């Protein structure tokens, strides 16, 4: 307890001693964390939007005329058994004609020209709403489409597919920028701790020689790194909130359509936790490697 109090006191003294350097460091960490925070936020909202689009994913498999009804029944059962499928039903040629008449009564007269139904029989499938299933759904549809008596398939997944692609791109750019900024951030904290070690080198040397344990010497620096990282994360959270508040105003001018399509307002709490935890972890790691590099405990 006393040891922790000493370490905390020492860490705070270090932080307050080099105010300018630490403030600069905080700003850089905050910016470093803000970038992945924004991309994470965009990615989260796009995913949510894809989920919304996916709620109505439907496919219609048109069946060739004169197909074997037993084979159709078997295919229907196969489709219904799939975990991605919410519901599936067979629409016969006559039923399709009836449905058309019901939906477009003003066009009934056209159908009167035909003795038989001009519409093909089909199996209509509604899928479960889950953005993560899109790839599986597409793969499933491709498999069904290969069945010999399936004429063609009609699918309303194009939008979702495009958004998913944008999301993937955003995630990739976010990850790439985050990786670069992460290295920058580690480098900055590493050097801040190095400066503080240098500033306190005489004291560290004395502590070492009068019998201070490794952890007694190192813990204040580790705490300092953690505090810097945590505060950087906190600042990044504030900046992220401000950015999100400002984004709708910006979007209104620049891309009104996108703004109408996607409601960029939802900010999941987990992003805040991620920023705080990542910041603290970066701080701890950077100060740890700085200590390993610059504090000499063992003899030559």
């Amino acid at each position, binding site marked *: 307890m006393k040891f922790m109090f000493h370490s905390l006191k020492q860490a705070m003294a270090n932080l307050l001693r080099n105010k300018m350097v630490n403030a600069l460091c905080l700003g850089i960490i905050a910016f470093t964390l803000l970038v992945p925070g924004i991309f994470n936020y965009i990615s989260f909202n796009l995913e949510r939007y894809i989920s919304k689009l996916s709620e109505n994913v439907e496919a219609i498999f048109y069946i060739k005329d004169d197909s074997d009804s037993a084979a159709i029944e078997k295919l229907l059962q196969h489709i219904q058994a799939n975990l991605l499928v919410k519901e599936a039903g067979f629409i016969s040629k006559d039923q399709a004609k009836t449905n058309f008449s019901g939906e477009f009564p003003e066009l009934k007269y056209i159908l009167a020209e035909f003795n038989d139904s001009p519409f093909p029989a089909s199996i209509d499938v509604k899928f479960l709403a889950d953005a993560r299933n899109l790839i599986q759904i597409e793969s499933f549809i491709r498999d069904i489409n290969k069945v010999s008596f399936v004429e063609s398939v009609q699918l309303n997944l194009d939008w979702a597919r495009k958004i998913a692609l944008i999301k993937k791109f955003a995630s990739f750019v976010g990850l790439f920028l985050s990786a670069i900024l992460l290295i920058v951030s580690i480098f900055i904290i590493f050097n801040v701790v190095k400066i503080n070690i240098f500033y306190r080198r005489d004291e560290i040397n004395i502590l070492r020689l*009068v*019998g201070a344990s490794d952890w007694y010497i190192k813990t204040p620096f580790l705490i300092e790194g953690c505090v810097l990282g945590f505060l950087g994360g906190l600042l990044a959270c504030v900046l992220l909130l401000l950015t999100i508040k400002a984004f709708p105003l910006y979007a209104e001018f620049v891309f009104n359509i996108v703004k109408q399509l996607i409601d960029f307002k939802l900010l999941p709490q987990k992003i805040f936790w991620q920023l705080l935890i990542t910041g603290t972890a970066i701080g701890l790691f950077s100060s740890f490697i700085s200590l390993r590099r610059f504090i000499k405990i063992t003899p030559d």
Partner: protein
Amino acid sequence: MIQFFHVSKQYFGNEALRDLNLAIGRGEFVFLTGASGAGKSTLLKLIYKEEEPSKGQILIDSVNSTLIPANKLFKLRRQIGIVFQDFKLLMNRTVHENVAIPLLVRGEKQADVEKKVNNALALVGLTFRKRYLTAHISGGEQQRVAIARAIIGNPKILIADEPTGNLDTNLSIEIIKIFERINANGITTIIATHDLNLISLFPRRIIKLDKGQLIQDKKIEANQ
């Protein structure tokens, strides 16, 4: 207490100590002497494991110090009080704060720290400077602060590297007398000095080094 077995130390090919065999018993008072570069400081550093021997073994209180792992080194150093040639004091801290450091790193209670600091400062005659900034006291007083810090942890061994190097004769004698008082409590005391005049005033065991080799080890009796 302290045993050196065929100890050699090399720095980049230069031999600072060569095949040294030495034994210092518990409670002994020893002057370590020799010209500059004779190897005195190296020998002391090997005792408190600031340096590792290139060859040989060193036993401190029957423990082979070369085998002590880095994370247990502090245990050895808590048994040894060191007075450095350059004092190694924190000039922006008070005398009290400097002396208290060895106790604080051990996590001792504040009340005990207070009591022990007072006792240590009384022993070196510096109680009246307790609240002074170390930068604001004289060189001789700083020397005594360094001694107080070295003994406050109740070490088994006290090492002093040229403790009178910057002091006049009277002050030097006073400092050695303080060491004698400390030694009287059973603390093994090793003082490195090149001041032969000073040594002649205190009839004690003298170990003389020259170019890293032991060339003299004798005990001077009081009437000599």
